[in-house]
């Protein structure tokens, strides 16, 4: 495992299933931003989902089957960069437990030790510095639960945002409160999930921000969907895509 200070020559990129199906541009932006720093990105075609949906829903065997595939696909001893706090947390913090007592445990641990959340990788390993070429804009930041509490990478994401000189970062009153996505929770308990996301939408609206930025596409889908249904004036965008835009004058 490459030590923190050394820049790797190659990294894997785990796109996540939500980015694959709904936010491919965010995935591409994240990849391009890594490549821009002179690092080669490998996107194994065999990747799919980290397994979290089944893992959280009471189906650990199915989660293991899918997770095992990812362990096999990301087998080289190079960092795995993940543009999602919850997927990164799944691989880093939950894979070892998921494979406890199985033959895949060593490999699971090995993969876990190589996982980085995207903003964490950009700041801690690549030590990026960005120049903001965009027009002045007010945005607000939503702290995804797993990025906050499990990966503990929020500060890295905010550091990236603070590098952008013309971006005004307005704080949410309840920045750290769950947006209500919770994967299948939003389907199984729509009313509670709805109450949570609507409170989050109200909070965002109160800041007057043009955009809400987050590092997790589950949250973004959830917030964007609720915001659109209520014809809210703000858009929801992934951090990587936002940065790509800003440094290119968008």
């Amino acid at each position: 495992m490459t030590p923190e200070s050394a820049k790797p020559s190659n990294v894997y990129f785990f796109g996540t299933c939500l980015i694959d199906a709904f936010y491919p541009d965010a995935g591409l932006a994240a990849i391009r931003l890594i490549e821009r720093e002179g690092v080669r990105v490998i996107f194994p075609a065999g990747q799919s989902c980290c397994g979290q949906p089944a893992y959280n829903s009471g189906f650990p065997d199915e989660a293991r089957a899918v997770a095992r595939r990812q362990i096999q696909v990301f087998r080289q001893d190079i960092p795995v960069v993940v543009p999602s706090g919850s997927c990164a947390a799944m691989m880093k913090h939950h894979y070892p437990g998921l494979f406890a007592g199985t033959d895949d445990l060593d490999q699971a641990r090995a993969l876990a030790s190589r996982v980085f959340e995207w903003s964490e990788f950009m700041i801690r390993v690549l030590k990026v510095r960005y120049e903001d070429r965009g027009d002045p804009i007010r945005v607000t930041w939503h702290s995804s639960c797993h990025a906050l509490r499990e990966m503990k990478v929020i500060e890295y994401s905010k550091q990236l945002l603070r590098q952008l000189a013309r971006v005004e970062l307005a704080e949410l009153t309840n920045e750290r409160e769950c947006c209500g996505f919770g994967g299948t929770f939003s389907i199984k308990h729509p009313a509670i999930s709805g109450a949570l996301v609507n409170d989050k939408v109200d909070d965002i609206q109160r800041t007057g921000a043009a955009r809400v930025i987050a590092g997790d596409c589950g949250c973004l889908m959830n917030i964007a969907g609720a915001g659109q249904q209520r014809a809210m004036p703000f858009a929801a965008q992934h951090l990587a895509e936002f940065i790509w835009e800003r440094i290119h004058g968008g």
Partner: protein
Amino acid sequence: MAAEAFEKNVDRALADTQLRKNFAFAMGNFILKRRAVFSDAEETERLRDLGNAIKQRALSRLPELLEQLDAVCTRNGIRVHWAETTAIANRIVLEIIEAHAASRVVKGKSMVSEEMHLNAFLGTHGIEAIETDLGEFIIQLNGETPSHIIVPAIHKNKAQIAKIFHEKVAGAPYTEEVAELNAIARNTLRRKFYEAGIGLSGVNFAVAETGTLCLVENEGNGRMCTTVPPVHIAVMGLEKVVERLADLPPLLRLLTGSATGQLVTTYVNLITSPRREGEKDGPQEVHLVILDNGRSRIYQDPQLRQTLQCVRCGTCLNHCPVYTRIGGHAYGFVYPGPIGKILTPQVEGLDKAGELAFASSLCGACEEVCPVKIPIPALLRRLRDECYSSATESAVPGSGCKQNLAERLAWKGWAFLNTHPRLNRMVTTLLGRVGDYLPSSGPLERWMRYRSEPAFASRSLHGRIKEEGIADE
């Protein structure tokens, strides 16, 4: 409770704007208070680690410590009773009361007594249980159950409480002044303390080393119940025993800071025996009822055993975005909030209460603040696994109750797709084309109750990688 019953409760609670306002205000307050009293992050972590270690140590020696507690308490003159079920615990309490020909009990706040549904039971036997904690007093007047572990009447605002006092307390004027409402409670209950023949309390910690019952409170009603009447009955869950007196200072700091944002409660009450020779006051009889009610079964499973570390501080409730919005009653059982979600299904069975384990987004806010570091999200996941498990033997009653073909096939299908990349790509591509035209039913319908339709990308990330010149190996 059935999923539908819970959903109904949730809908009703979410529609109650006053309730939501009351809870949002109170929980926000609790969060700030806790932050203020645990302001040093590193020190707080050390303290939580210590709380976890003390509780894990105590649980690792649970039978030995309970035996020691029994022996030392008995030697000190406290009569110890063991109750496997709440029905038996109720019987024991009743027998003690009847042995003294009493018709009234003054009660300090005790969640175990709620678990026992003690008041209702005593009522059917002609014995009046008088709640003396202000919050319990309020809800008792209104025929309600507590909605929070620490502040039972937090779902009510001043106006609602003023109305209850005015209508239900003889001679009480209508007033929303807290000092006046307080005075009404003090005056009403002072007489009851004076007259009561029996006092009942819970136990925060029971120290095996010295046979000491530790009770914390702010109002003084607990001391009144355990000092003035000639008989004191203490009820506790068997997980409340700790090894040494020296374990108390950190646990008290954690409990008090987490529960109310204080450094210390008004009173920390350490009871080791009934009145001794020459003493002028204090109960002449002290009884300790140790309740099992499923705890020894929870204990069998090392992972689920962590549920028993709980010190009943209520801070998980305070930080839970779900609890804040639906309040305590919606859960439908005695213990609400995150602790309720892991405890209740294990005690009542997954078939009766398993639904609670799914009413969480697994955000982890509870785990982040639990003073004894119970890994609540992991235990919720475990209970979810148990609901769908096809194992023949299980630590949890009602295991496998949610098994159904539709979900099993859905997840098997999901796993198949996600382990067959080419098929997966085909399906994603297809959804990219027809996703907008999917009929709104089932999961999609539920998603769209509160959100506009999700937009599948016309081409997935997988589909664009090659043309973007990104290596795939």
